[in-house]
């Protein structure tokens, strides 16, 4: 009986701490990524962005995704990779009109991915 109670408490603590950490970690990482994307978006809008700006966002994402792989399905990470790679080319070629929608999609992903991990009825069902 004592052993059972101890294991229950241990698992409850482990799962609660894990769940809270996961939620905060994902939210923080994507908020940070969204801030970078927002800056890039403004630069593209003003047509002042360079390929170095996009590379900076890309390398930031590469750093983040190393840890995010533990919590997020790898396909979702791959999706961000692909959109980011496309925007690098458009900015490099100064195709601002094409680059903007790509960044917009990335921002949408950065907003939506953390939502899919929050405790909501639509995520449970």
């Amino acid at each position, binding site marked *: 009986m004592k052993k*059972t109670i101890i294991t229950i408490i241990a698992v409850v603590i*482990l*799962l609660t701490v894990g769940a809270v950490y996961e939620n905060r970690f994902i939210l923080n990482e994507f908020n940070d990524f969204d801030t970078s994307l927002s800056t890039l978006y403004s630069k593209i809008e003003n047509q002042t962005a360079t390929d170095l700006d996009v590379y900076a966002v890309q390398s930031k994402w590469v750093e983040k995704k190393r840890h995010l792989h533990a919590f997020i*399905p790898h396909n979702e990470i791959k999706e961000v990779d692909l959109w980011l790679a496309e925007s690098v080319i458009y900015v490099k070629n100064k195709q601002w009109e094409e680059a903007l929608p790509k960044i917009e999609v990335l921002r949408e992903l950065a907003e939506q991915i953390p939502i899919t991990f929050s405790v909501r009825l639509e995520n449970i069902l």
Partner: protein
Amino acid sequence: MLVTLIRTLIIFITLFTVIRLMGKRQICEMQPFEFIITLIISDLACIPMSDVSIPLVYGIVSILGLFLLHQLISLLEKSGNFCKLVFSGKPSVVIDKWGVNIKELKKNDMGVEDLIESMRSMGYFSLDDLDYAIYESNGKLSALEKDSEKKGSAIPFLVVADGKVKKNNLYKLNITENDLDNFLKDKRVKARDVEVLTADDNGRVYLKVKNKKYEITSLKSIGEK
């Protein structure tokens, strides 16, 4: 993580309810909740292992969730009889001093054939070989054997189960439906009131009529009539 955990809980509760409603024949030497955990846990472990796009932590959290449920249910079971009754059910006495208890069999979604089959696997071929038989909550049959002198020596066939005549078995015993009708008339019983009637090649009959104690009689009385 919490979403995975909640989904695990929902699947567990659904499966648990279904298995409990299915009765004891669906499980084998496991409590219902242990059976469910066994069912789910293999898949939970396999999916993140085989699908590399799913983080391993998903499988680990689900398995931990199941472990937590298992421990909680074990604890609740230890805490009181009511909880034990809800989670594991109670043993069913299917043969007592009155004979086969059809009501208890039906409660567990079983028939006389299932009982006979379980008994055969234990080495008992006739319903009157046992004084008591109990289906434990894990689905296993426990039996209290009768004195060996009172036991039959031939394999009995089920002739009437829950008021329905098994014509194939009548044929195997070389008995006509008329013979059976005469036998029942002689006993002043209607076929629909017969819960169990078995007969063997020696003409030994086990007869259990609704709300009456079972009796061991002989089919030879038919021929004499």
